């Protein structure tokens, strides 16, 4: 039943969707241009052909409508997977997500559930115009009732997509679009793995400093760890995978051991995921911390023009600079 294939990150998601469509006929995909076009990133390529127009639905151009009708479909027993075309276009659906999707189970005391997955290609570095490079994950994770995740590898993309669709909770599935074309071997098939939606993954072990990242910045953190290794510094890289909930136990376990922590994400630093990590780590590792938690993140400015995005985005150099600062304490 299971096999291993070399897949791009995007294709791994496609296969996760396909596996879910095959195993549960209540699963359906909704979004703009996901049918014949296969989505602007081709993540749903071929799925409408294989599963039909009733299960892979080209919707009207209205994000609130997509999410609102997905909630209704979920109440009727379906498991809609909604594609938001780009990060910056999720906000028209924000009300439905925040006041309805997140709260439906709670409002009904568990009598109904709305297992909707929202796929959002996010993050920068692809040379795009405004609204096409943002990282709004913190704007969702603050709201109870939503799960927020972001895979960093094709294998996780595949596994976490299947787990997200199987989850009884609404899941915001942030896909690091800059990684769509990266490739790796992916083990396909088999049962949906446990825990991938709420546990961090140690992407590289180390002793001197912990780099915490998720989604697109895991690759950055790993490159920084390589550079650090060359200089004799051993960095551990923790890939959060889940942003709500954060696997604080795993992060704290690492940081209490290394004594230093650098968080890396593309979203602005102010009130970003790094703030929560810093707050938790400073608490849990109060006596072990050798330096304050450093944050390497986007700036408090709208995502800039493409010509400047590489100055805005956390780079390997900025991570190294932060590690230097942490080590200098």
């Amino acid at each position, binding site marked *: 039943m299971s096999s291993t294939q070399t897949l791009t990150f995007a294709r791994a998601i496609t296969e996760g969707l396909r596996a879910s469509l095959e195993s549960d006929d209540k699963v359906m995909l909704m979004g703009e241009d996901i049918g014949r076009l296969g989505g602007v990133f081709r993540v749903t390529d071929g799925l409408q052909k294989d599963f039909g127009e009733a299960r892979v639905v080209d919707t009207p151009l209205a994000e609130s*409508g997509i999410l609102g009708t997905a*909630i209704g479909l979920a109440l009727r027993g379906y498991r809609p997977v909604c594609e938001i075309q780009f990060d910056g276009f999720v906000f028209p659906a924000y*009300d439905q997500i925040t006041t309805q999707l997140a709260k439906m189970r709670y409002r009904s005391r*568990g009598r109904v559930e709305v297992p909707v997955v929202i796929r959002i290609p996010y993050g920068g570095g692809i040379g795009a115009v405004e609204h096409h490079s943002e990282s709004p994950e913190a704007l969702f994770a603050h709201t109870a009732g939503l799960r927020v995740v972001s895979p960093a590898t094709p294998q996780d993309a595949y596994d976490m997509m299947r787990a997200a669709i199987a989850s009884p909770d609404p899941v915001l599935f942030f896909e690091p679009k800059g990684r769509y074309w990266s490739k790796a071997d992916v083990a396909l098939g088999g049962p949906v793995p446990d825990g991938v939606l709420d546990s961090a993954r140690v992407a590289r072990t180390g002793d001197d400093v912990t780099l915490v990242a998720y989604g697109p910045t895991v690759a950055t953190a790993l490159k920084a760890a390589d550079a650090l290794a060359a200089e004799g510094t051993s960095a551990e890289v923790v890939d959060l995978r889940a942003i709500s909930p954060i696997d604080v136990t795993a992060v704290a376990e690492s940081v209490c051991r290394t004594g230093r922590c650098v968080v890396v994400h593309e979203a602005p630093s102010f009130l970003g995921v790094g703030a929560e990590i810093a707050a938790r780590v400073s608490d849990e590792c109060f006596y072990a911390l050798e330096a304050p938690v450093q944050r390497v993140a986007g700036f408090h400015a709208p995502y800039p023009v493409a010509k400047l995005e590489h100055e805005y985005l956390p780079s390997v150099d900025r991570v190294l600079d932060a590690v230097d600062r942490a080590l200098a304490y």
Partner: protein
Amino acid sequence: MKIDATGGNDVAAADVTPLVQLVAPDGSRVVDDAGAGLRERVARLTTADLRAMYRDMVLTRRFDDEATALQRQGELALYAQSRGQEAAQVGSAHALAPQDYVFPSYREHGVLHVRGVDPVDRLRLYRGEDHGGWDPNEHNVHLYTLVIGSHALHATGYAMGIQRDGLVGTGDAGRDAAVVTYFGDGATSQGDVNEALVFAAVNNAPVVFFCQNNQWAISEPTTKQSRVPIYKRGEGFGVPSVRVDGNDVLACYAVAAEALERAHSGGGPTFVEAYTYRMGAHTTSDDPSRYRDRAEEEHWRRRDPVERLEALLRAEDGWDETWAADLQAEADAYGERLRDGVRALGAPPAETMFDHVYGTEHAQVAAEQKWFREYEAATAGEEVAR
């Protein structure tokens, strides 16, 4: 059809717009060319049917009165009356098949009554004891939605689910299903309601948009939401639309029945504007004397939908004093049960505020719940000590 010079805030619009009416305010049947098909639908109704509607309207009004009193006594945090809208609610709800699904707003007490939702459960939300209060799947009635207009999309999505279940156009009246969603005149301004019309039209979804135009959105008259009669809105989306006298229970029943028949058979969505009046305040927190005048209220008091059905029953020998007295007694008993039931509602245990946030464990919730439990245990006696 008849032109109803209503004297409401959009008199001008009402003056020129045909309003489906089957029973005149004096209780006499309206006979005109346009209403023929609808008249046929109500011709089938027996006196017992009409009495059942009357009973539902009376009990709905009693529910209103009791709930309002309970709020004044501090037993409820808030309450939103349906007074004046009983015909629109009860009439349309009588047209529903058991397998149909309802997405109400927050004022559809008459609809919930007809569907059989427990009256005490219906007040849990207004007591501040529950955000919902009943099991949506028990009577096919979704919970009240307080964010104006949002649920119109849920209704449309639900209807798309019914299509996918193959339960439209089966020809089997016991299986064909549809959705009715209720919202107000104010709600028509929300993007979500308009997007719902887009999705419903494009998908030909079996959903009836039942707008109760009660002429006010809190303090704003309908003229602040639209410059043309609200039913026109549906037409712009290609959704068949109709304006019905919302104080005429038979017209509301017939129009809803027709719309549901269309939906059941695969004919797609319908938009209904039930032109009615909010006789009471917006909610118990509201003071309508600040924004509307007595004359208007008085005008509409004289077009009370309950009285209109009484007049019809009397005119057609459907009235019987014993029956009427029994109904009063039933209403009294109902009121008493409601009062007792509401007063008996306690508060849920504090710890339940962590329940059902997620369907599976979530570390953040688990940690906070644990902390809370320990804190509660530790401080149980402490407050005295401080």
